[in-house]
């Protein structure tokens, strides 16, 4: 759930179908996906505020039902705060594998419509239905068909935006949530876009929003009035051009078919630069633990491990290695990350940031696995799952490898300064 989506409470249901001629792009977004899936299994909770997230002192909200959102609860909020806002909410643990299964079903529906499916995450995709018209009807009809099939086959609702560009389609689906369908015809783009606040545009974060506010630009309409050269002067060439195009409803990106080929990563910026390889390795271990836990929570395994090393000079290098088979085990991720780090030849170089990422994700358990003599089915995987369970109950850090346990009085050279990338590197962290 992004910040932008929270800016808009569920809007009014659209009126009679708008003209969808020349609107082949669909953005399909599941409504409160994790919560909806949970409600399939716990129908008695329907209509009550429900929160999905790790319940513990350091847990955060992964998803909230619309009922919970009316209390101000939103994703990425600390669970403790969500509890205070909405004490009556039912808090359910994250069951990544369950969501992955439902997601696979939903994507199967998409692919039965068109091969041009660009998955963004488990619960979100762009579809280009230009070629499906003859077989299945107009874009709006196809959108309705998708909504119907998702409801019938998976028992959950979704919202669909229909437009001629990806970003308008996405904004449309946001506007019609939940359980809605909104067509923005090409000649309706300006009318749709201009009243919206600038923050709803793709690429406008808090900093840019402030910069625009200083120029007196609060709505997309106002932004559209500003000449390109002025915007570029104020915001820099690339961002200026980008916003100018968006404000005029232009978005040249095509729908590129791919599976939600995501990556999951975490990184850490040190308080002071670190050149002690032991400290770096310990950090890699911590990050590997974190990435492993996230992979397992999301029901993924990844085949490629990459390490990002940023030097004191800000020069950044990444090194990656593809494993023989996909993994979600922190131990494997850690060992690979260490080898990549050692192979990068930066062992005595001062680093300001390290990151660990797992790419090439596949649903857990689907990849073939080479068995080993000494590795019965309950090996490290079981151990790490046990850690996951304890983490659910007692919070992250309750169980961790011995190397990460520090005496309270022990100094931490270059201890964590900020959780670099926590926000953007969450479960949907993409490159």
């Amino acid at each position, binding site marked *: 759930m992004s910040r932008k989506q929270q800016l808009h409470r569920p809007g009014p249901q659209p009126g009679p179908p708008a003209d969808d001629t020349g609107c082949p792009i669909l953005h399909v977004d599941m409504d409160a996906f994790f919560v909806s899936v949970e409600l399939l299994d716990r129908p008695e909770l329907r209509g009550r505020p429900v929160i999905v997230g790790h319940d513990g002192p350091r847990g955060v909200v992964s998803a909230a039902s619309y009922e919970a959102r009316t209390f101000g609860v939103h994703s990425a909020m600390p669970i403790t705060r969500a509890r205070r806002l909405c004490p009556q909410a039912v808090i359910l643990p994250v069951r990544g594998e369950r969501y992955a299964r439902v997601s696979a079903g939903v994507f199967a529906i998409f692919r039965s419509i068109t091969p041009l499916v660009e998955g963004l995450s488990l619960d979100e995709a762009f579809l280009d239905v230009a070629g499906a018209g003859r077989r299945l009807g107009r874009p709006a009809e196809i959108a309705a068909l998708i909504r119907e099939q998702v409801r019938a086959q998976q028992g959950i609702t979704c919202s669909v935006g229909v437009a001629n560009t990806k970003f308008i389609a996405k904004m449309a689906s946001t506007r019609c949530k939940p359980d809605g369908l909104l067509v923005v015809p090409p000649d309706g783009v300006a009318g749709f876009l201009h009243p919206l606040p600038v923050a709803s545009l793709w690429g406008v974060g808090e900093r840019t929003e402030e910069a625009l506010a200083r120029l007196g630009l609060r709505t997309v309409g106002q932004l559209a009035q500003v000449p390109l050269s002025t915007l570029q002067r104020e915001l820099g060439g690339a961002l200026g051009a980008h916003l100018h195009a968006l404000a005029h409803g232009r978005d040249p990106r095509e729908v590129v078919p791919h599976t939600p080929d995501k990556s999951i990563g975490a990184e850490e910026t040190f308080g002071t630069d670190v050149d002690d390889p032991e400290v770096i390795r310990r950090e890699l271990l911590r990050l590997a633990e974190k990435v492993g836990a996230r992979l397992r929570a999301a029901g993924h395994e990844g085949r490629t491990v990459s390490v990002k090393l940023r030097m004191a000079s800000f020069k950044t290098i990444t090194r990656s290695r593809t494993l023989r088979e996909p993994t979600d085990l922190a131990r494997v991720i850690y060992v690979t990350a260490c080898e990549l780090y050692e192979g990068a030849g930066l062992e005595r170089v001062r680093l300001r940031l390290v990151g660990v990422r797992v790419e090439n994700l596949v649903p857990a358990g689907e990849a073939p*696995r080479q068995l080993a003599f000494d590795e019965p089915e309950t090996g490290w995987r079981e151990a790490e799952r046990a850690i996951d369970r304890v983490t659910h109950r007692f919070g992250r850090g309750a169980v961790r490898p011995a190397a990460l346990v520090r005496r309270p009085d022990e100094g931490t050279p270059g201890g964590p300064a900020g959780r670099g990338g926590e926000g953007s590197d969450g479960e949907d962290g993409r490159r």
Partner: protein
Amino acid sequence: MKFRIDRDALADAVAWTARTLPVRPPVPVLAGMHIEASDRLKLSAFDYEVSAQVSTDIDVEEPGTALVSGRLLAEISRSLPPHPVEVTTDGAKVMLRCGSAKFTLLTMPVEDYPTLPEMPPAAGAVGSDEFAAAVAQVAIAAGKDDTIPMLTGVRVEIEGETVTLASTDRYRLAVRELHWKPERPDFSAVALVPAKTLADTAKSLTAGAEVSIALGGAGGTGEGMIGFEGGGRRTTSRLLDGDFVKYRSLLPSEYAGLAEIQTAPFIEAVKRVSLVAERNTPVRLSFSQGEVVLEAGTGDEAQAVEALEATLEGEDIDIAFNPAFLLDGLSAIGSDVARLSFTTATKPAVLTGKPPQDGENPHYRYLIMPVRLSG
């Protein structure tokens, strides 16, 4: 120092010794080849783990020693014309004269060169070709990952007249038994030899008919060392420390199914089907009466399917393997007919050649762990 030597004898001796020169010498002198001319010529190389020494006939005029760059000597001796070679020292230089060609090598301080390890006492002898073949069959299954040193070794177990070699990388296990002639009939010993060293050594000692194996006992000469000697060449290696896996318990005592396939077509088929699939994609073998179907690739990927004639005793079974592991084993069994016995699709399978007579135990067994396909 001054001696004359046959050109090919020199080239052979230098080339063999040069194999042991370290690529990254921890101290420069270890990149040197030690030359000692007395009644015979002795050339040595040593990298602190493995030592190699060859001795060969020369016509010596003035005995002496010298230390020269091993690589340079190897390069020069490869390119010598077919004439007798005369080697002399001249101050800090070694000169090689061969026909009209003349080469100069700078010497290094010979007194800095480390003393070579002593050869442990001889334990027995084995046919050199059989030994090389046996080691090659076993070494393929050794691990290459240094983080588990034990798995990078070949376990050598000697019990009277039987030598058993075994190695494993956790995914497959190769075991080979062979006969040898021990110095004492009751000789018994175990050792863990670095697989790469053992394979290289065994292969390079086939010039003589036999290889003698030397093993040091605890506390005695050559403790922690193994030595091999044959045809004027001797190698010592430090042993790996630590226990080996209890591999005998991994060998299944019974099986539920047993299949036999012609080895050569089987190898070709595995190669073909795995060629079309992504690297490391498992090959699935579906055995039924009279036939095995090979299949590579999973899900939507391009699939290759091929069927071969096979006999099967027992229930139909689907079992998948890493094709590289399977090919290693098939190439090692040294038999026209491959025999695969298994219990279930997730338990180790045993690959052997078909014994000449039923009921006879094969000398070589290759145990392979299957790949579990998604459910």
